[in-house]
């Protein structure tokens, strides 16, 4: 019977903590970037102008149907050759996950905007609002509430996807775990602890998301 020994893992907990911090930094960067990119892509896709709609369609479909790890390799190993720039693992990962989550967010934004009843658009036009005003004051505030559950789900997916950066040596939680497992010869304990760290933090996020959803549902302005 194997004897579990977590002491060597806890002795190096600083290493894992630093990795967890980097995971959070990368997630936050890609999340904030992804929301902006997603909103822009959604507007472009809903636009009447073809030269805006077609490129947005292309970006959304390509990034949704290719594996994130292939995208990451393309941005890390391939892109620097075209642009002749130096690419750090963080830059490559930030760029990949910003555009990738942007493509997914765009579809959520689009579905939310399209779901707002026609009457709302007509009423806003009737009292003389321009397109931007109507979007900002009438449509988006209502759409965002409906999109909330899918947004949270996508953000959690994003946090899990960030583990892929370990393959290009960005020191995220998983990368630090690989290092620690080699250093301590305790892969069982290390990977178990790391899995638990992800499990606990992601469960906390889902728990608070679920509570917020209930609150939105109570105020009656929320429906899927």
């Amino acid at each position, binding site marked *: 019977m*194997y004897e579990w020994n977590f002491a060597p893992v806890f002795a190096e907990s600083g290493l894992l903590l630093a990795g967890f911090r980097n995971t959070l930094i990368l997630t936050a960067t890609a999340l904030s970037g992804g929301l902006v990119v997603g909103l822009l892509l959604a507007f472009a896709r809903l636009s009447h102008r073809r030269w805006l709609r077609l490129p947005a369609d292309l970006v959304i*479909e*390509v990034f*949704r*149907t*290719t*594996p*994130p*790890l*292939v*995208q990451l*390799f*393309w941005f890390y*190993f*391939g*892109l620097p*050759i*075209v*642009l*002749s720039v130096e690419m750090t693992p963080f830059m490559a990962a930030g760029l990949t996950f910003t555009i990738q989550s942007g493509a997914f967010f765009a579809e959520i934004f689009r579905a939310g905007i399209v779901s707002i009843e026609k009457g709302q658009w007509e009423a806003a036009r009737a009292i003389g609002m321009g397109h931007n005003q109507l979007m900002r004051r009438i449509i988006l505030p209502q759409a965002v509430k409906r999109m909330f559950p899918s947004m949270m789900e996508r953000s*959690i997916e994003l946090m*899990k*996807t960030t*583990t*892929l950066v*370990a*393959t290009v040596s960005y020191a995220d939680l*998983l990368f630090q*775990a*690989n290092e620690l*497992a080699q250093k301590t010869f305790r*892969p*069982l304990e290390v*990977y*178990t602890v*790391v*899995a638990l760290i*992800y*499990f606990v933090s*992601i*469960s906390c996020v*889902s728990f608070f998301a679920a509570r917020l959803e209930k609150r939105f549902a109570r105020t009656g302005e929320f429906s899927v």
Partner: protein
Amino acid sequence: MNYNWDFASVFDNWWALAVGLQGTLRLFAVCLILGMSLGLLVALGRRAHAKPVRWASTAFVEFFRNTPVLVQILWFYYALPILLPVEISPFMAAILGISLNSAAYSAEIFRGGIQSIEPGQWEAARAIGMSGLQTMRRVVLPQAVRRIIPSLTNRGVEIFKMTTLASVVAYVELLQQGKLVASLNFNPLEVYTVVAALFLIILYPIVRATYGLERRLARSD
């Protein structure tokens, strides 16, 4: 920006990529079948009368949905052999990680589908003397599966994309072979472009078909 693309060096090694594609398809087929069937079992487990079965199924779903697949694959590859006296090949580790992860996700899809069937269907089946299992098999599941086909197809596409993670434990699949070709010919840009294009060519028709299917089902319901 005037980089000279040279795809010839990629196509010279087409056989390496073909071997990789074969590995990808093999892993995909196994994980699709295991993931979906285990998912159905877990979904039924969450509706079981026995509390321990219900509890275990819920714990399974929560755990596998709330941890990254890559961590699961690495756990099965490096950690599991320490606990059990078994050899775990990269193929096995990838199958375990991806199948169990997809089982948790598809269990939720099956559960949603089963719940969406009106209580009247259950009552009617009982009234004509069917047992619970018979009702599930003959009345509820056939209707539920029809409704969840688009979500299940999406899951299938996700599984296909997930197979690239097996390259991390050096299982021979498309991306792993891409890495090999890129390191031999120093042409990562072309190789990864081709690999991405291959995934797009295989998956895009399926994704488009799901869009159409979703619209058809929405109309017929």
